[in-house]
């Protein structure tokens, strides 16, 4: 199982603490307050690592795509097992 999933920011709430993201093919709400506290606010189009309903780290698009590939490969293997 993958501990953190890449998520793409769609929309950020006005207070900067929550965002709508695309995660595992669905739109979900994610807390982005931790990154905001660190002075690293996120914007639509940014990629983050999501864990337990929170964005815990910012990643760049190349890292995100690589992780997504890895996640889908792992799931395929699990499905075949």
């Amino acid at each position, binding site marked *: 199982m993958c501990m953190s999933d890449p998520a793409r920011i769609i929309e950020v709430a006005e207070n900067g603490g929550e965002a709508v993201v695309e995660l595992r093919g669905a739109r979900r709400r994610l*807390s982005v307050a*931790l990154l905001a*506290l*660190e002075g690293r606010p996120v914007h639509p189009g940014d990629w983050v690592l999501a*864990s*337990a309903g929170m964005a815990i780290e910012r990643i760049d698009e190349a890292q995100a795509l690589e992780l997504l590939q890895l996640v889908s490969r792992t799931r395929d293997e699990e499905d075949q097992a």
Partner: protein
Amino acid sequence: MSRTDRSTRRQPQAASRPPMVVIGVGNPFRRDDGAGIEAARLLRDIVPEGVEVFERDGEPAALLDAFEIAPVAYVIDAVVSDDPPGRVHRIELGGEGDAAVPSSPRRDSSHALGLGDAVALARALDRLPERLVLIGITGASFEAGDELTPAVRRAVKKIAASVARELAQLQEAD
């Protein structure tokens, strides 16, 4: 909360029991002694759902009660040490062990007891959480006042962020 009977205390948890708690300890009117309280206030907005955050003044009985709320507890407190202000000390106890706990700055308290006393008491009474993480932030000033010194303020913010990250990863791994 009254002391619960030992035989019932380690029973499987009710569904409503939080998996983890964070306890900020200190006195926000004694400058850097408020480091743990400030960390708790920051953490309240950034912990994963289900994690409970408390503020306590360090009184051992109240800490012992907070220890029993969840199997995993993080405690953040200011400490007195010869290190530069803002230096972070971390001690993990897995329910057993004898790690020494740095002294707390509660000199003004009528109880005159610190976190180390609470931990020793909890251990003696078999009331330590399954996993207890103690985070101490070295303070510079414990004079009257409600502002943290700059190095401690920076350390508090960093600690809050790193504890939130750790909790998210623990929760996800469960």
